[in-house]
């Protein structure tokens, strides 16, 4: 397995180099950020001074070289807008986004798995058909529309939940989390559900398909013939087998939850990384955009590794297959 991982890491390095080049040069062609920062009262001399101070007067390849050399030392540059290290800004907002993503993932599993199992075990019942129809809605409705609807219904009309923001947080080992207060949870509920909706549908569909396929397999028939209880067949034999694709997909989807929860964070004014990214793009805060995308590459690489490991735990054949290499 270690050879496997080593090879994967080498590939990742190439991916990151390519990513750095594409992102850095790509963002350079969008526009001149100086015009986003300067105050209208400034004259041309002031503007040029700002350009020099931000290092934007230097040729692009020189800027890129400076970026690469400091990135290798762990410094991804300073935000133009905040004047602080770009990576620090992102990490500061990361707990909020991770919390949102984990909550969404949690909802996807606790709601998606049972519903999908039910729909797979009793495919012809009315309830199952309703579940499947609901999952189609979950796929096809645009996130921002659903988000606005949720705010209107649960915050404005019913007044049950707060509409925006993060609410009260508790310091857990230096990280601010809202999991542990009622106020925090109430703020978390709507954005997490909004973000989870698509993933719930995904889990339902995967679970149902897996269940229907597995129920026809010989090992299920054999287990039945042995006289095992239905709950043991479903809970152990069936679940263990259908979980593999679900874990794989959720692993990858978790990456996208973290990386691009932009829409949900914007609608619910959730102070996470997605909101930072979208605002940095609007303001052309190049160092933050570059740092963000570089970090996302790392996140995806790590997640893929973790998924592989979980995979091999669930299905020993993966381990054996790799040893054969």
């Amino acid at each position, binding site marked *: 397995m270690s050879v496997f991982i080593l090879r994967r890491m080498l590939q990742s390095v190439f991916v990151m180099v390519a990513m750095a080049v594409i992102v850095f040069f790509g963002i350079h062609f*969008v*526009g*001149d*950020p*100086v*015009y*986003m*920062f*300067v*105050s*209208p*009262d*400034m*004259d*041309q*001399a*002031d*503007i040029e*001074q*700002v350009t020099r*101070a*931000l290092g934007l007067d230097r040729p692009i390849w020189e800027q890129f070289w400076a970026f690469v050399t400091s990135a290798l030392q762990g410094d991804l540059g*300073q935000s*133009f*807008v*905040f*004047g*602080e290290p770009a990576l620090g*800004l992102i990490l*500061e*907002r990361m707990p*909020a986004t991770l919390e949102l993503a984990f909550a969404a993932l949690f909802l996807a599993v606790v709601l998606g798995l049972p519903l999908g199992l039910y729909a797979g075990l009793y495919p012809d019942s009315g309830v199952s058909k309703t579940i499947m129809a609901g999952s189609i809605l979950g796929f096809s409705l645009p996130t*921002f*529309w659903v988000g*606005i*609807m949720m*705010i*209107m219904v649960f*915050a*404005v*009309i019913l*007044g049950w939940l*707060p*509409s*925006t*923001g*993060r609410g009260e947080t508790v310091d857990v080992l230096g990280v601010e989390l809202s999991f542990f207060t009622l106020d925090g949870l109430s703020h978390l509920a709507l954005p997490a559900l909004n973000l989870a909706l698509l993933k719930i549908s995904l889990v339902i569909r995967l679970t149902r398909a897996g269940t229907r396929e597995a129920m026809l397999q010989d090992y299920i028939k054999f287990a039945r013939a042995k006289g095992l209880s239905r709950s043991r067949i479903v809970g152990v034999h069936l679940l263990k087998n259908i979980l593999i694709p679900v874990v794989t997909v959720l692993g990858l989807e978790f990456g996208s939850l973290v990386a691009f929860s932009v829409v949900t964070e*914007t*609608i*619910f*004014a959730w*102070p*996470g990384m997605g*909101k*930072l990214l979208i*605002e940095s*793009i*609007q*303001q*052309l805060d190049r160092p933050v955009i570059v740092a963000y995308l570089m970090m996302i590459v790392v996140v995806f690489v790590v997640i893929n590794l973790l998924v592989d490991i979980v995979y091999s735990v669930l299905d020993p054949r993966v381990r054996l297959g790799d040893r054969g290499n």
Partner: protein
Amino acid sequence: MTSITAPLVRALACAACSAVALAAPATAEDLTIGVASEATSIDPHFHNLGPNNQLSFMIYDRLANPDDRQNFKPGLAVSWQPVNDTTWEFKLREGVTFHDGSPFTADDVICTFERAPNVPNSPAGFGTYIKGKTFEKIDDFTVHVKTEAPYPLMVNDLGNVAIISDEKGCSGTTQDFNDGVASVGTGPFKFVEYVPGDRIVLAANADYWGGAPIWETVTLKPIKAGPSRVAALLAGDVDLISGVPTTDIATLKARDDVTLSQGVSNRVIYLHIDQFRENSPFVKANGGGDIENPLMDQRVRKAISKAISRELIRDRVMEGLSIPAGQLLPEGFFGVSENLQPEPYDPEGAKALLAAAGVPDGFELTIHGPNDRYLNDAKIVEAIAQMLNRIGIKAQVETMPRSVYFSRASSGADGLPEFSLILVGWGAGSGEASSPLRALIASYDKDKGMGTANRGRYSNPEVDAVIEEALSEVDDEKRADLLARATEMAIEDLAIIPIHYQVNTWASKKGLSYIPRTDEYTLAQGVVKD
């Protein structure tokens, strides 16, 4: 996104309006404001940017504080006057204390103006307002400011810079301000807490020299998306919001649990016209061939102005929230002309002018504009294009995000403004007419610092002369006349085509209202109980 979701909010909000009352806040003295954009730092000298200045107006005073119409009222200075052609004397307010209890004196003023232009990592600081001036402490409550030439805009400049404390602030880094260690001012509110992206909390300064504020604590919540801001107000999560999307205004007006506060802004929306190139890149002859730039002809520019129905834009695009413009600043501001009126809508007259200019069949033109900068900017550009089509100018529209737009509009591939006809806005930061005159109308001159935002490169030496005279005239009355004259000359020459002045809207829960400000800031001290 805003434009798609806003009607939805409107529909739903209306369905709900009879059934729902706004939730009550914790106590009457707490105020929560949903602001459209967030300050990037608590350091008042870090970035000369709207959201940052808005925040610093609550925590800090200036020597002269601009009121809601941008008239400079005594702040930490009780009076100011020129003692000779090149020296201004500021008498400081006695008995003022900072939030930490330390007294305010001339030392704080001197050190503030030393620090303000020199903040490390600042993307764009306050050096503009301070350069060319030397500061001298006469006694604890008298400061002299010297310039090389007569300088009438002294108060307007210094009224932009927040005064910080010598003991805490002047040696503080931006990080110290963000942490709350150095953020000590003399203003009506004290800094309490800053959670980036989520909230900024302020508390009343009971000892404020201008009287204690009515709000015990103030929480500023950044909510960028317009529909979310409206929803947060309707849900009772915030008491007041700024930047109400125009599409939601009719709905909110119909509700009896919401109060709207509206006021004209110092921002004029106008067209800049390429009038320096023989071949303008986005002007073509009918059929797409090259054509000598017709926009150089004053009659063509006049025709374009006549073709635009500013009333129609106000009624159909702006939901009534604009005031047709005939010059650079709305009435009531220093230096505006009383003789200028908005150009009346006159398509027939426009066609006649085109014929007289030798282009009776019009020409092809692309109008450029931003789509995320001003109220309904892209829609205005589209409306204007349709109106131009009516007089025979085949106008196309191209709008883009401001991050792309402004750098191309200022300096394209060859360092020159890239477009031919563009929609832009200008807010007069100084609160008087010299601000747009020197930036938009004066000939582009890098060394003099004139015409910085003159993206049409209009140039008229006679107008320049009047502007320069005004900029060194210390007598207020004479200066106002000169500014008005320069404005009249420029408008008659169609240096730019003014469209309208923006009207801004704040919405609050019933029982509160907001005193609108021309500088568009949302300040807790401007929120009043009815």
